[in-house]
C-alpha cells in the first residue's frame, strides 16, 4: 500500500547566491531576503509545504546560511515541530569521499542521499526556496501518482520573451514531456519549468547513483529521464514569480499593492518567523501622526509615520518623519527617513538612515545603468545597503548603489550622479 501523499519528503534548495539581487544578498542567501514587509522569500515555499499538509522538510543551504538558519529556527512558525514533523538544515559537509561544496541542484541532493534513505517515503518533492507563489503540493503528488510518472515537473506558461531564463518542456496531449530545452535562446514552447519536481523516491536514488557528473536537474537529470523514462508536466495556473533580479523583485513587491494581481500573502496563509530578528513583528501597532499621508501602500506594524508614503512597502520599525516622502520604494526594517527627505524608486535594506532633506532617486535618467552592475540596475531603481547612513541634504540619482555600512564621510560630493556607486 502506498503511503499518504502528505508523507512525502521535501527537499528545499536554498543554497544559491542569487547574485543579481546585488546588495540584498551581501550578507544573506536569496531565500532569506525580506519580501512584502514582513516576510522572507523562503516563507512562500515553506508555507506552501505546510498548507499542503507535508511536514518533513530538509533545507539545503550553502551560501551565507546564518540569516536563513536563524529565520527557520525550530520550524515552529510553519508548524514543523512535533513527533513526526521536522525541518532540518542540511549544510555541505566533508565525508570519506566527498569533500566538496554543492556543485549544482542534483549534486546537492546527491550529497544528502543518506538523509533521503533515513526517511522512508514514496515520493521526494524538490523545491527551490526563492519563488513567490501559492501551490498545493499534495494535489501535485496525487497527479504524479495518477500519471504513474517517474518524475513530475511543475510548469507554467510564461511569455516567450522570458523563456530563455528557464528550462522549457515540450509536452504531448497527455502532458507527458517529450522534449526538453534548458534555457533556450530560440524557444519552441512557452511552457517553463518552475524548478518544482516530484520524484519517485526509488527512481531518484537510482538516477542519482548513475553518474556523478550529472550535477544539475535541468541540464542533466531531466533530459536523460525524458528520453528514457516517464516524465510529466504538472500545469500550474496562478501567480508565480522568480524574484531573482532587482527589477522582478521590485515588481513583485509592487504587485502586493494591487489586489487584482492575484498575490495575497494573508489569503495564501503565508507564515513567517516573527521572532527571528529580535522582536520582528512582535511590535506595537503603527502610529500615524498628523503629518501622515499614506496611500496605495503596505505598512507593517511598529512603524511611526508622519510623512508621505505612496506606492511603497514598509517593513516593521520604519520611521518616516514630518515632511519626508517615500514613493515607489521598498524599505526594510527599522530604517529612519528624517525630516523632508525624499525617496523615489529606492530599495533600502534594514537599519539605514536617510538624513534630513536628502533626495534619493532624482532626475529622469532611468536609463543610465549602474556603471559597476549594468545588468543589475538599469531601470531607475537605486539600492541602499544595510546600516548605510546618507548625509543630510545629499542628492543621489538613478540606478545608484550605496554600499552596506556606508558612513556620511564616504559621500565626498553633494551629488551622486546617475549610475554611480558609493
Amino acid at each position, binding site marked *: 500500500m502506498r503511503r499518504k501523499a502528505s508523507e512525502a519528503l521535501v527537499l528545499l534548495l536554498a543554497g544559491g547566491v542569487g547574485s543579481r539581487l546585488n546588495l540584498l544578498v551581501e550578507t544573506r542567501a536569496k531565500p532569506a531576503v525580506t519580501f512584502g514587509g514582513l516576510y522572507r522569500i523562503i516563507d512562500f515555499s515553506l508555507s506552501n509545504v505546510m498548507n499542503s499538509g507535508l511536514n518533513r522538510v530538509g533545507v539545503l543551504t550553502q551560501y551565507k546560511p546564518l540569516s536563513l538558519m536563524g529565520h527557520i529556527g525550530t520550524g515552529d512558525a510553519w508548524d514543523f515541530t512535533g513527533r513526526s514533523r521536522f525541518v532540518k538544515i542540511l549544510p555541505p559537509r566533508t565525508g570519506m569521499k566527498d569533500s566538496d561544496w554543492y556543485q549544482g541542484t542534483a549534486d546537492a541532493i546527491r550529497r544528502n542521499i543518506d538523509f533521503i534513505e533515513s526517511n522512508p517515503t514514496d515520493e521526494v518533492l524538490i523545491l527551490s526556496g526563492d519563488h513567490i507563489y501559492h501551490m498545493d503540493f499534495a494535489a501535485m503528488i496525487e497527479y504524479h501518482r495518477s500519471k504513474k510518472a517517474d518524475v513530475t515537473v511543475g510548469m507554467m506558461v510564461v511569455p516567450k520573451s522570458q523563456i530563455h531564463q528557464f528550462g522549457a518542456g515540450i509536452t504531448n496531449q497527455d502532458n507527458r514531456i517529450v522534449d526538453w530545452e534548458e534555457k533556450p535562446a530560440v524557444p519552441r514552447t512557452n511552457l517553463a519549468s518552475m524548478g518544482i519536481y516530484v520524484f519517485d523516491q526509488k527512481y531518484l536514488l537510482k538516477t542519482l547513483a548513475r553518474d556523478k557528473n550529472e550535477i544539475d536537474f535541468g541540464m542533466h537529470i531531466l533530459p536523460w529521464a525524458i528520453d528514457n523514462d516517464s516524465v510529466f508536466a504538472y500545469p500550474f495556473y496562478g501567480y508565480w514569480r522568480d524574484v531573482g533580479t532587482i527589477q522582478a523583485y521590485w515588481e513583485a513587491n509592487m504587485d502586493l499593492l494591487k489586489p487584482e494581481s492575484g498575490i495575497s500573502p494573508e489569503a495564501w496563509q503565508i507564515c513567517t518567523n516573527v521572532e527571528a530578528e529580535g522582536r520582528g513583528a512582535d511590535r506595537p501597532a503603527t502610529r500615524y501622526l498628523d503629518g501622515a499621508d499614506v496611500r496605495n501602500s503596505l505598512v*507593517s506594524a511598529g512603524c511611526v509615520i508622519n510623512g508621505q508614503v505612496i506606492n511603497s512597502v514598509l517593513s516593521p520599525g520604519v520611521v518616516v518623519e514630518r515632511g519626508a516622502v517615500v514613493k515607489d520604494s521598498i524599505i526594510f526594517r527599522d530604517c529612519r527617513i528624517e525630516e523632508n527627505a525624499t525617496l523615489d524608486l529606492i530599495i533600502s535594506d534594514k537599519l539605514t538612515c536617510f538624513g534630513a532633506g536628502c533626495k534619493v532617486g532624482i532626475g529622469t535618467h532611468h536609463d543610465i545603468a549602474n556603471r559597476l552592475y549594468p545588468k543589475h540596475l538599469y531601470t531607475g531603481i537605486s539600492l541602499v545597503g544595510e546600516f548605510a547612513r546618507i548625509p543630510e541634504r545629499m542628492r543621489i540619482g538613478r540606478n545608484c548603489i550605496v554600499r552596506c555600512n556606508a558612513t556620511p564621510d564616504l559621500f565626498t560630493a553633494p551629488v551622486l550622479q546617475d549610475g554611480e556607486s558609493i
Partner: protein
Amino acid sequence: MLRPTTLAMILAGGRADELNVLTYYRPKSAVPFGGFVRVIDFALSNLMNSGIENIAILSQYRSYSLINHIGTGAAWDMIGRYRGISILPPFIDSQQNDWYRGSADAVFKNLDFIRYHAPEEILILSGDHIYQMDYQDVIDYHHKKQADLTVVCKKVARQRASRFGMAAIDDEDGQRGGRVINYQEKTERPEGEWSSLTVLCFRPETLYQALAENQADTSFEFGRDIIPRLMSQGKRIYGYKFHGYWGYTRTITEYWQANMDLLGDDPQIDLEQWGVRTNLDHRNLRGHQPALFGAQAKISNSLVYNGCLIDGTVRNSIVFPGVSIGPGAVVEDSVIFFNNSIGRECRIRKTISDVNTSFDAGVRIGQEPEGSGEQISVVGWNNQVPPGTSIGPGATISPSLDATKWPAHVEAGRVLS
C-alpha cells in the same frame, strides 16, 4: 540552580460591570487594548521586564478568553524549568465547594500552591491596569524597609478619591515612599492622598496569617479587609510612591481615554518603549500581512496594526487587526476591535466596537444631533448593523443582536438588547 524567589499572583477574576457589553463574554483583564494587546499584557510584560517569571493567575469569570490568551506563557518568556504561568481556577475539594468569594479568598484557597513554591515575597497584582512599572524596585524597597506589606500608591485628586483605597504616607523616604499611617477604603473624605494601585508586596508569613484570620469574616477583599486588618495590628506597612502613567479601565470613559492616551506626537503610553508583549498566536495575530492602504485612504493621528484594509478615512482612532474600512467611510475618535468590517460611506464617531461586527453601507454613529455627542457608543460583538442605520451618541448595543431587532434609528443613550 537559580530558583525564582518572587511569586507573583495576578487577580484577573473580575468582570467590571461598568464595561457592560465588552465584558459579557470575557473578564476585564482580557479586554483588547491599544490595537493588538489585552489589558493583562501590561501586568505580564511588566513582570517579564522585571525578571519575575513565576506567575499564578486567579481567574473565575468567563476564563476561556484569558486561558486562550495566556497559552503556554512563552509570549512573555515564562516557559522553562523554573519559569511558568499557572492559571488557578476555582475548584471543589473535600472541605469546600464555593466560588472565589473575593480577591483575598481566591489567594487563600490556593495557599497550598503558594507554600509549595516557598517564595521570599509574594507580589499581588491586579490584571486590569495600564502602566509600566519595575516591580524589582518595589521589592527592593519592601526589603529595605523590612516591611510586612508594601503598597504601591499614586497621588490622586481628593475629589476622585472615593473610588479607591486611600493611604496617608509619611515622607520617610521622600518621593520614594514612607510608612503608611492611615488607610481607608473608598471613603468620601479620606485622610490620605495616595490611592492604592493594587500592587501589593507581602512578607509570606504576614499574608498567610492575615488570610487565615480573614476567613472568619464575611468579606474577602485585599483593599477592604486585609490591609485594614494589618493596619489595626500595627504591622509594618509601607507605601511605595509611583509617579508614572496610570490608566484605569474600569468604566467605558476611562477605557476609551486610556486608548486615546496612545495617540499624539508624544503619547503618554508608549508600547514600544514600555516593551509590551502579547501572545501573537491568540486570534492569529502573526498570520496577518501588513496593513494595506488603498488609493483613497486618509489617515492621521491613529494606530493601525497588521491585517487591516483601509480605503476610507481614519482619524484619532485605534484599529485592530482584520478591520476593513470601505471607500468614503470616516472613522474618528473610535476604538475598533478585531475583524470589524466598516462599509462604504459609514460615519463612525466616538465608538467602541467589539470583535466581528460589520457595519453595512451608510451606517452613522454618534453624528446627530450635531455637536451633542460627547457620549461614547458601544457596539457588542458579532453584530450586523443594517445599511443606513443611525445610532445616536452614547448608545449601547448588545452582542449578537437579532437581525429583526434593528430599528432605523437608535436614540442617543439607548440600550438596545
